[in-house]
């Protein structure tokens, strides 16, 4: 199997599984507890059906949408995800260039393995910086200043990682970052030699946004759960978010909102967008799926800020359903991460190409030529 055999989400996933040492694959692929929420994030889309209109003349389809004041050529973008150089040695460089090619937003994690400065010198298309609220205020200021200086368009504060989720696959595989060779994982690393060679020869593994602030340096093995639980500030509250929002002074989003109440407060503190998200099911298992919760939130705040439906998206039709409910855009992590692991920049580009082709085809089948043609009359919920 190689890249040209990958036609959909699960193909990319399979190829990624072949290429990656198993602790790394399972870090991407896994979620919290019994992974019930993770499964629901996708199956939620199947409880509603699309109702097409015919005979509308649909030869030209415009997929563009505007979020955070930026026009994107696609109605979805790439969620910020950590540690991309573990998945492919080009990491954020590959993902950023692919995003640029399709003119969509590139989300860069606080735990990125390539610096904001380098990314900004590489791509001039829309960029979002994902912020974690650390105990170390100096570290927070530095992240903010650097993202601002690097001309990032949006700041997204992640609010659903107050403590680390219970990712049992990582407990079993002993996943740490950077990867540590334990007896249990050794076998898996040994059977994926290409990954090992690339990892060791293509530059040192670092977390450039953190390294000046972590005494031991960021090449010390630590689990992600440990990072959340020890470095992030659990006392983070609405005031902190508000201060950050005004300090940033530009487009600002809260990532990980699930309740209507919190969505309204996001408006009050000056956010221009929110990601309805449960972190891809990686935090609170048993929590509600973004798509299940979307309509309520759009009804409450959809006219006041950009509502983004994040997580569980495997298909163009999933995006059409979310957009029909009133999301301004969709976003996802795994929808490009497996492709990154499978084939670097070429992999991500192939994935984006596939989703784009699906969207165009499905828009035509729906009888729609632009995103604003989609609305709730296109949907029927099964009871």
């Amino acid at each position: 199997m190689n890249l040209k055999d990958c036609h959909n989400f699960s193909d990319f996933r399979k190829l990624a599984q072949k290429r990656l040492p198993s602790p790394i694959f399972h870090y991407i692929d896994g979620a919290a507890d019994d992974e019930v929420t993770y499964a629901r994030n996708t199956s939620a889309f199947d409880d509603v059906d699309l109702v097409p209109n015919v005979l509308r003349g649909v030869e030209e389809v415009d997929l563009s949408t505007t979020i955070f004041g930026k026009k994107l050529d696609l109605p979805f973008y790439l969620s910020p995800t950590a540690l991309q150089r573990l998945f492919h040695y080009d990491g954020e460089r590959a993902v950023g260039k692919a995003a640029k090619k399709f003119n969509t937003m590139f989300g860069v994690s606080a735990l990125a393995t390539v610096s904001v400065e380098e990314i900004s010198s590489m791509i001039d298309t829309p960029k979002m910086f994902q912020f974690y609220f650390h105990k170390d205020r100096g570290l927070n200021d530095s992240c903010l200043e650097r993202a601002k200086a690097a001309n990032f368009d949006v700041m997204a504060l992640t609010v659903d990682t107050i403590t680390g989720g219970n990712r049992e696959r990582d407990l079993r595989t002993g996943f740490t970052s950077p990867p540590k060779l334990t007896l249990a994982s050794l076998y898996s690393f040994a059977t994926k030699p290409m990954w090992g060679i690339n990892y060791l020869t293509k530059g040192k593994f670092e977390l450039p946004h953190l390294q000046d602030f972590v005494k031991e340096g960021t090449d010390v093995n630590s689990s992600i759960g440990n990072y959340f639980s020890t470095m992030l500030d659990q006392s983070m509250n609405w005031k902190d978010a508000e201060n950050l929002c005004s300090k940033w002074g530009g487009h600002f989003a809260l990532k990980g909102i699930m309740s209507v109440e919190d969505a309204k407060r996001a408006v009050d503190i000056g956010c221009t967008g929110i990601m309805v998200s449960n972190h891809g099911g990686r935090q609170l298992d048993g929590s509600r799926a973004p798509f299940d919760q979307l309509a309520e939130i759009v009804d409450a705040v959809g006219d006041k800020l950009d509502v983004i439906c994040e997580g569980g998206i495997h298909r163009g039709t999933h995006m059409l359903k979310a957009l029909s409910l009133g999301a301004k855009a969709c976003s996802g992590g795994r929808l490009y991460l497996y492709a990154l692991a499978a084939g670097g920049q070429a992999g991500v580009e192939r994935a984006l190409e596939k989703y784009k082709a699906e969207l165009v085809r499905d828009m035509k089948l729906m009888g729609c030529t632009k995103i604003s043609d989609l609305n709730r009359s296109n949907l029927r919920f099964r009871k």
Partner: protein
Amino acid sequence: MALKDCYNFNDFRNLAKKKLPSPIFHYIDGGADDETTLKRNTEAFNQCDLVPNILANVGKPDLSTTIFGKKIDMPIFLSPCAMQRLYHHDGDKASARAAEKFGTFYSMSTMANNTIEEISNISGGPKLFQLYVHKDQSITDDLIDRCKRSGFNGMCLTVDTLVAGNRERDHRTGFTTPPKLTLQSLMSFASHPSWVFNYLTHGKFKLANVASKTDKGTNIAKSVIEYINEQYDPSMNWKDAEYCVKKWNGPFALKGVMSVDDAKRAIDIGCTAIMISNHGGRQLDGSRSPFDQIKAISDAVGDKLEIILDGGVRRGTHVLKALAAGAKACSFGKIFLFSLAAGGQQGVEHLLRNMHDEINRNMVLMGCKNLKELNSSKLIYRN
């Protein structure tokens, strides 16, 4: 596989399966008939979703709750389960000590292998006694008097075992108590030599609390089913229950209430609590699961007595959902018996620690400071 590799229900179950002769494993693991209710008890939790609040600055959440007049450190406790000596040679002593360590209830079954007095001597923690109404009323009276003298905090009367359920696995494995060596079971006992060794060398197996009152079911090979059918009074009615409530004259629950009407009658006869339960799916197959039924019951009587959800609980988030739906606490049987079989007192402590950490982590992710904040607004049922 060892105790330290046990993160969840399946892990404990697998380890218990390795350690126990198969008739004993299946006695714990099995349910009635086709085990549909057994499965539904856990699946029911997946039909609704938690909705977290963000930026709530919860600090260290308070997990304490008060049931049977006792404040306990977390909202989960050990259900009464028969014959724990079969699962580990320390039996009820192990369970009682572990529960005390975590500041929560241990419950003693009428069919325990230790006496009421033995357990109250080794544990000063909260204790609940589970009563069966015997045909010979002097047995019932004797049990109540002894519990009172021994400082038990509460009493529950099990009302869902008027006849024994049809546990087909036990028919097949030839499960009897004490275990009888049949040709079928011989192989399995022979292949678990350390269980057999411990079982034979750690004191005689008896139903300690009723041993002096009956010669049946204690040291002759007799199936539990036969015992239930011979000793327990199938004509037990509301008057009998009321008699027990009065005689005990303290915190009292009916265990096995499923209908709203019966919950109301429990108030009338003076109960302070009910345990919504179908006996872990071991009695009437096809009956409703506790979680499916809790909302109706809590709407009707939640302000008048304490509701305990018993059955199907495997995860911290299950506990959170039950509390949001109106329970004051949950209890569990199988998962704790597996942990007991897996590692005795240490095993149960390992389970309780996992459970405590899960509940704590998920409270933080929910943005809840205490259990009162878990109300129905945090729970959304799908359609």
